[in-house]
Structures are given as C-alpha cells and as structure tokens.
C-alpha cells in the first residue's frame, strides 16, 4: 500500500514537473474521450427525444404506411408502394376495435399573405391527427369533425408561418392565407416550439381538414392512414384485421401496418448502430492519443535511464520499475480522460437549451474505462523496456 502511494506520488511529481508536456500528451486522450462522450451524449439525447415524441402519440396508435415502412427488409423506407384513397379509409373504419381514423395527405406548399410567403408542410387530415402530437393551440382553436364534413377551408398553423406572414400568432387568427391560390382562414396557431434542431418542425406545419385539400389532391389519395384502437390490448388483433382487409386490394409488399412500439424498436436499433459508429470514430482519436503517450513514455524512459539504474542498484525489482512507468502512463491518460469528460459536461450543459444531449453514468464509465485501457495498453511497452534495462548499463548511462 505504501509502495503504491509512493509510486503515485512520484508519478504525479514527474508530470507536475513537465506541465506543458503532460498537457500535450494528454491532449490526444482528452479529444478522444471528449468526442466519444459527446457522441454518446448526442446519441442518447436524440434517442430520448424521439422516444418522448413517440410517447405523445399514445399507445393505441396504428399507422398504415406505403411500402415496407421503417421496419421493412426492402430498405426503401417510405418511398414507393401505394397511395391510399377514401375507399381504404372507409374500409378500415369498419374494422372492429378501431376507434377513429385519420387519413393523412402531406405536401410542401408555399403559404402566402400580405405579400409575404413561407414554405410549409401541409398536412391534410381529420381532427384525430391532433392527438398525434399537435394537441394544443395558444390562440384560436383546432378544427373539428364539423369542419371536415363542411369541407371548411380552415387552417391551424405553426408559429413560424404566423410570425412570418402576420407578425405574431395572435395576429394570425381570423386572417386569410393563400395556398396555391386557395384561400384558407387561420383558426388556430400552435405554440412556438423554439429554435432547436428538431423542435422547429412543428413551427412550419400547416394543418387543414382533408376534405378541403382535394383541390391539391385531385386523386383523393393519402400518404398514410393513422388509426386509433379502442384499447392497447387489442392492437395486435386490430392490426391483423386491417392487414387482412387491405390485402384484398394490395399486395403484401405495398403497405405496412405498424404501431409505435414497432417503430420505436426500429429507431432504437438505428441508434444502436449509430452509437457504435460514433464510438468507433472516437476510438481512432483515442488510439492516436495512446500512441502519443507511448511515444512520450519511451522518451521518458530514455531520459531517466540513469535513475532506473540507481533504483535497480538499491533494490528495485523489474516489476517495481514496470509499475512505476505504467502508473505514470495511466495517470497521463486518466488525466486526459478526466479533462475530456469535464469539457464534455460543460459543452452538454451549454447546449442543453438547444439540443437534448445527455451524459449518464454509462458515458462516465466508458470515458474512464477507455482512458485507463489506453494508458495500460500503450504504457506497457515503454514500461517493459524500462524494466528490462540492465542495471549496470542503466547506471552507467549519461
């Protein structure tokens, strides 16, 4: 125990003596750990954010998507496949266990008013769409079933559109906007979600009753159909029934019936892959940092050859010398790891308002774990060289 303390003490002493060199040597590890921990933080943050988004959709949400969806083996995702129409909507409405149906038509459009314009994501659907994450307005109201039945030309718009065209959400209520020369009355605005990378999405949304969108959508087709089951326990049966119904018309590969749990699983596995890739990138900087440590430790061993000889002369074993230099390499890399972690924490705190980054215990363990492994792995070669020096040759070294 005493020996360990003495080792650590003398290692710290050496590192303290060469502050600039110590810092530069640790820098590689610092950057490596910083990038790994930051990447993990972004990965976890994004994953958490998306999970939360899904949670707001509710457990009973079922989605009918064209093609093989997210989970398909085709990989083409949402591209290709079929578009759905009102016939499909009416058919799935009749499936037992289905509480409500929201056909979804989406299009990028230019919303214009007062001589200004704003590109917006138009979503045409039924009021059920509001329960999938767009459920509150700060001014005005959401449209209702009556609006759908009356084919009312009303719109609920995001705050970015409102601010651009009318100056503020409050001012937008009751005003008229033009979408491809069709006039719509703004009846409600969504509260501002903020300038975050992901949060800005809802701010450029423009939601109208699907019955009022047929002029943009002459074929009366839908990109997707969202449904709500009456109970989350019967979701499996409802999904199977919907599939059976649609198979009468479409081929198996043309559409996907999915639920959020399934999508969540897909998203999670995508992030697992992403995290692995990010860690691999960080590992490269760590290896470079490790080589830096190895290099400096070789130089240190040469510098201190005589000291090694003296220590051997007064009774140090090869193991004692090995441990001395190994502990020095370990301290160097742990120092880098600690600083990297510290800077990562500061960065995460600073960007927290803009991006949902997270540093958890796992990141800390990974940060320290990796830096100690690097220290031991790259420190052991120079330390072995020090230990293998012949005592007499070392003591004669000038």
């Amino acid at each position: 125990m005493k020996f360990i303390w003495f080792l650590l003490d003398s290692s710290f002493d050496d590192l303290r003596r060469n502050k600039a060199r110590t810092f530069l040597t640790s820098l590689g590890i610092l950057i490596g750990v910083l990038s790994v921990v930051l990447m993990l933080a972004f990965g976890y943050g994004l994953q958490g954010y998306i999970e939360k988004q899904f949670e707001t959709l509710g457990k009973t949400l079922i989605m009918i998507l064209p093609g093989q969806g997210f989970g398909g083996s085709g990989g083409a995702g949402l591209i290709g496949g079929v578009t759905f129409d009102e016939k499909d909507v009416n058919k799935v409405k009749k499936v037992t266990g289905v509480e409500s149906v929201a056909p979804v038509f989406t299009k990028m459009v230019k919303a214009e008013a007062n001589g200004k314009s704003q590109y917006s994501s138009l979503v045409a659907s039924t009021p059920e769409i509001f329960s999938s994450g767009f459920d509150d307005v700060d001014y005005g109201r959401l449209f209702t079933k009556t609006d759908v039945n009356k084919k009312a030309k009303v719109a609920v718009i995001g705050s970015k559109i409102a601010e651009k065209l009318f100056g503020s959400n409050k001012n937008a209520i009751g005003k008229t906007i033009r979408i491809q020369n069709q006039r719509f009355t703004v009846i409600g605005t969504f509260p501002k979600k903020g300038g975050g990378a992901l949060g800005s999405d809802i701010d450029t949304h423009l939601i109208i009753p699907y019955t009022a969108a047929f002029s943009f959508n002459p074929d009366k087709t839908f990109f997707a159909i969202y449904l709500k089951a009456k109970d989350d326990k019967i979701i499996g049966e409802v999904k199977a029934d919907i599939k059976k119904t649609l198979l009468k018309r479409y081929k198996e590969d043309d559409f996907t019936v999915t639920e959020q749990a399934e999508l969540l699983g897909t998203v999670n596995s995508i992030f697992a892959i992403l995290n692995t890739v990010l860690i691999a990138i960080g590992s490269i900087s760590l290896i470079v940092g490790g080589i830096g440590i190895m290099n400096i430790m070789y130089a240190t061993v040469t510098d201190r050859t005589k000291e090694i000889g003296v220590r051997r002369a007064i009774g140090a074993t090869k193991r004692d010398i090995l441990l001395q230099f190994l502990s020095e390499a370990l301290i160097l890399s742990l120092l880098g790891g600690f600083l990297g972690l510290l800077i990562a924490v500061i960065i995460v705190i600073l960007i927290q308002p803009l991006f949902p980054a997270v540093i958890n215990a796992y990141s800390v363990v990974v940060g320290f774990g990796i830096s100690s492994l690097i220290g031991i792995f790259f420190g052991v070669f120079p330390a072995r060289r020090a230990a293998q020096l012949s005592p007499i040759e070392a003591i004669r070294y000038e």
Partner: protein
Amino acid sequence: MIKLVDITKEYEIGNEKTQILKKISLEIKDKEFIGILGSSGSGKSTLMHIVGLLDTPTGGKVIIEGKDTSSIKDNELSKLRNEYVGFVFQQFNLINKLTVFENICLPAIYSQKKLNYNIKEKALELMQKFSILDRKDYYPNKISGGQQQRVAIARALIMSPKLILADEPTGNLDTKTGDDILKLLEQLNKEFGVTVVIVTHEKDVAARTKRQIFIRDGEIAKKYL
C-alpha cells in the same frame, strides 16, 4: 562472507573480445575494511559491480554467505542488492526530484521483507549522525557535494546492510571533504561492524583501509603500479 571464484568478464565490441577481468578469485570476510586499488580501465569498477550483483560475470561464481548467486532469479538479486549491499558512487547518484529524506528512505520502498524498525526514525537518526538533518527537505542539487555523499551513505545504510561498496567515493570531492567521507566510512566499519570495500585509484585513499587488493589489466597484482 563473500567469495569470488575464477571471475571473468568479457565484452564484445564489434568482433573484438575484450577481457576486463581474468580469473579473479578473492574472499571478503565479515567486518573487513578493504581497498581495491587500480588505475582507470584496470577492471576494478567492474569487479565491484560484480561483487554488488549489479553486473553478472561471464564466468566464475560469486558466493554470498555460502549461496551461489550465478543461478538465482533477477528478483532474488534485487532483494540481495536491497538488503545485503549498500552502494556509494563517485557521482553520488541521488535522485534529484526526491528530497534528501526521500532519497534516504527509497531503498525501504523496494524492501521485500518486513522491517523490524521504523524507517523514518532510522533515516532521521542517520541524518543526525551525518550532520545533514538540517538538509532533510532539500533537493540533492541544492546541497554541497560532501553533503550529497553523506546522503548517499545514509541511503546505503538505511536497510542495515552487511556490506558497503564505495566506488571512488571521494573522486568528486575536495581533499578536506573527501577526508570527512573516508572518516565516516572508517567509523561505520569500526563502530558498526559493516564490511566496507572502497574502490579507488588513489593510493592514499587505499592506504586508509586495512587490506589492499591491487588490480592491473583485469588481474590481481602483487603491488600497485
């Protein structure tokens, strides 16, 4: 007691073999005070390094307390260097980043046995005896050569070895300081019964010892040339 039997040491430089020591046999009895005298390049330092187990002979045996050291493991050699031998070098060979006190205690850090005395107390006692107590927390490069050599002797004594090997201990010191160091070594031999071997090229240093061994061209000579 230490016995050297037919010790040879060869170095190979390029294709040329140089014999540093040629079949040297000698005995060092307990509590002896010996001077090994020889000119530079005679092989006297190599001989001392072999006695102190810092270097290994090409041929022959070093027998320490009846134990043949030619076949023992490196770990065991470290243990013997630590417990049995104390080295004093011409260049002092103190570790500059450690204080005087830490330098003196250093061998105890590497001790493989449990010591039956308190190292710190013993170090303070030695510093007191050698009049370097007031330099306890100084770094070696901040004290005089004579003081440094006292620190080195204190370090050599901290493990209570049976043998002190001093390689040109006065070589880097002025006559007066050198004389003090020699007196100290004499005192160690006389009062504490430590075996002292001084390696030197100076006749008058060797003359202070009780038995002189002359080395010339790697062999024991009858007299000093």
